[in-house]
């Protein structure tokens, strides 16, 4: 009986067309990355083991000299240390400044929300170079802030061509990335969960630390990772707001490639930066996964 019913059911005329296989979907972007990212990178790895040459990019003589020079000279270690320290500090500052802002964005309703988002994203419409020049007008020796200080008879402050200037620039540029990531996570938290905590006796402050903050960690972690990586590879801001007083790896690499025309050594420096970044990120992701065990996978 059941089978008869089964047979009587009309066959679908045409099977529903399924989406194209994943490989096909990955192809365009994959091809682009292979040609413009992977191939140059492999080439750089190769170059970093070759020797400097006169009148050519490199000579085909294999050597470890470039790496030995980096690891053997404390000057490079100090630059590497400064680069990571600056990126880390930028990350922490964007988090401290960005979290309250992200909270406001996530909890804003009605017309305030798009307004806040626009204010947040507006700086991104202006390139890093223009923004850095903007900061120079404000922070420079004859800049606005120092003019005011002088007029008040308070002397003069060193706001630029030092770590402070670079930090101000970096935090400003990367703040929106942190805010967007954190706001996204905060929006995912159902409001009832916080209310439940309140009803169970937790004060608003305690509710934040025991419920809201841990539940926003996915956003904090991804925002921090994004800002850290971006700050680590920043070039324009350190060079414009730090001058030659705040030497970081990307500046050194560009100098090596363009000014000294030492491509093998520049490549080796890039590889060291890349390798160390990978190690840091690997440790970071491991720690992150431990902290986010509760997320369904």
């Amino acid at each position: 009986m059941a089978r008869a019913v089964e047979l009587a059911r009309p066959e679908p005329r045409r099977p529903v067309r399924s989406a194209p296989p994943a490989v096909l979907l990955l192809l365009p972007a994959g091809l682009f990355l292979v040609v413009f990212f992977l191939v140059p990178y492999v080439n750089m790895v190769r170059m970093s083991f070759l020797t400097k040459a006169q009148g050519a990019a490199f000579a085909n003589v294999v050597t470890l000299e470039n790496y030995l020079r980096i690891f053997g000279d404390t000057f490079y270690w100090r630059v590497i240390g400064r680069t990571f320290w600056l990126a880390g500090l930028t990350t922490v500052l964007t988090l401290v400044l960005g979290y309250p802002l992200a909270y406001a964005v996530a909890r804003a309703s009605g017309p305030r929300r798009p307004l806040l988002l626009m204010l947040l994203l507006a700086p991104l419409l202006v390139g890093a170079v223009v923004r850095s020049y903007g900061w120079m007008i404000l922070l420079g020796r004859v800049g606005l802030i120092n003019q005011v200080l002088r007029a008040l008879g308070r002397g003069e402050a060193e706001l630029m061509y030092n770590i402070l200037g670079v930090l101000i620039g970096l935090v400003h540029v990367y703040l929106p990335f942190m805010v967007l990531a954190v706001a996204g996570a905060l929006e995912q938290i159902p409001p009832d969960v916080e209310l439940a905590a309140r009803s169970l006796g937790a004060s608003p402050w305690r509710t934040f630390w025991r419920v809201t903050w841990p539940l926003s960690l996915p956003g904090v972690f991804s925002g921090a990772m994004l800002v850290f990586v971006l700050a680590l590879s920043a070039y324009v801001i350190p060079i414009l707001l730090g001058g030659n007083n705040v030497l970081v790896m990307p500046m050194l690499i560009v100098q090596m490639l363009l000014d000294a025309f030492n491509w093998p050594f520049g490549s080796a420096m890039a590889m060291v930066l890349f390798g160390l970044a990978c190690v840091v990120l690997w440790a970071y992701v491991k720690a992150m996964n431990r902290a986010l065990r509760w997320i369904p996978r």
Partner: protein
Amino acid sequence: MASIQLEGVTKRFGPVVAIHRLTLHVQEGELLTLLGPSGCGKTTTLRLVAGFLIPEEGRIHFGTLDVTHLPPEHRNVGIVFQNYALFPHMTVAQNVAFGLEVRGLPNAEVRSRVGEILERVQLRGLEHRYPHQLSGGQQQRVALARALVINPQVLLLDEPLANLDAKLREEMRFYIRHLQREFGITTLYVTHDQAEAMVLADRIALLRDGILQQVAPPEEIYRRPQSRWVADFVGLCNFLPGRVLGREDGFLLVDTPIGVVRCSGTADAGRVLVCVRPESLRPDAGGTNRIVGVVRERTFLGNLLDLQVACPGGVVLRVQLTPTQDARPGEPLHLEFRPQDAWVVPEDG
């Protein structure tokens, strides 16, 4: 434990009045369900009691304590939300322990009380699971355990069964009732499901557009509705428009399109509606209110036979018989109903 008293409570959202001068008392140990269609203000009422909202007018008391402006964390209220609102980053044990930890109880006591309550809701062995690793029914029990473990003054339940499948929902009704009796806790239970309200409630409060319609035990709500709206909202009902002629032998005589019928009620004169439930109509056995009609529609519902019967005066009655009493479309049907099963409500409203 304490009673809940709302006195003339009004809550507005901008120009919208969500709750209008609501006065409602939930007795100590009682389970009162707030029943009404969506948007009637029942969840708003619950949130006012929980302290998530502050009323513009009126007072809310727990026993003798005025809690109108007390923040939620100081009200000692247990809440179960429709979506359970479990803490996704905490295990079952951590979820349940939360309320005890913020009260600063010593670890040993927290552990023993969590173990005890998990035992009572039959969740032993699942302590270290995260909420997403539990079934809907288990999450529901965690939510109950988390709300009850703090020994709350009152328990608030906001459509706690709405997200469960039909079978489990049926079981959980009895389970929640059992648990509430066992703890003897004053409970406000919000639902739009009248069957749920019937099974669970000591008393039902019916809410419509933020205005209280009737508060009474389930049987009274069903048998003695105060208005057409109440009779219509709870169960099925036939309404016969009519005019009160007078009283005879303790019953009202009402002139309706199907003739003069005897019924119960408090009205003395004027235009009224006679409410007759479909299951109150039964095959004519020579009783009081007798009608002849013709079967128009017949629907088999398994435990019931649902009929639409065309009667004199253009009245179509909905009739529900047990399936042993069959009737076919087109056939005449002799029916009757008892005076005590016909209830008079005012014509308006």
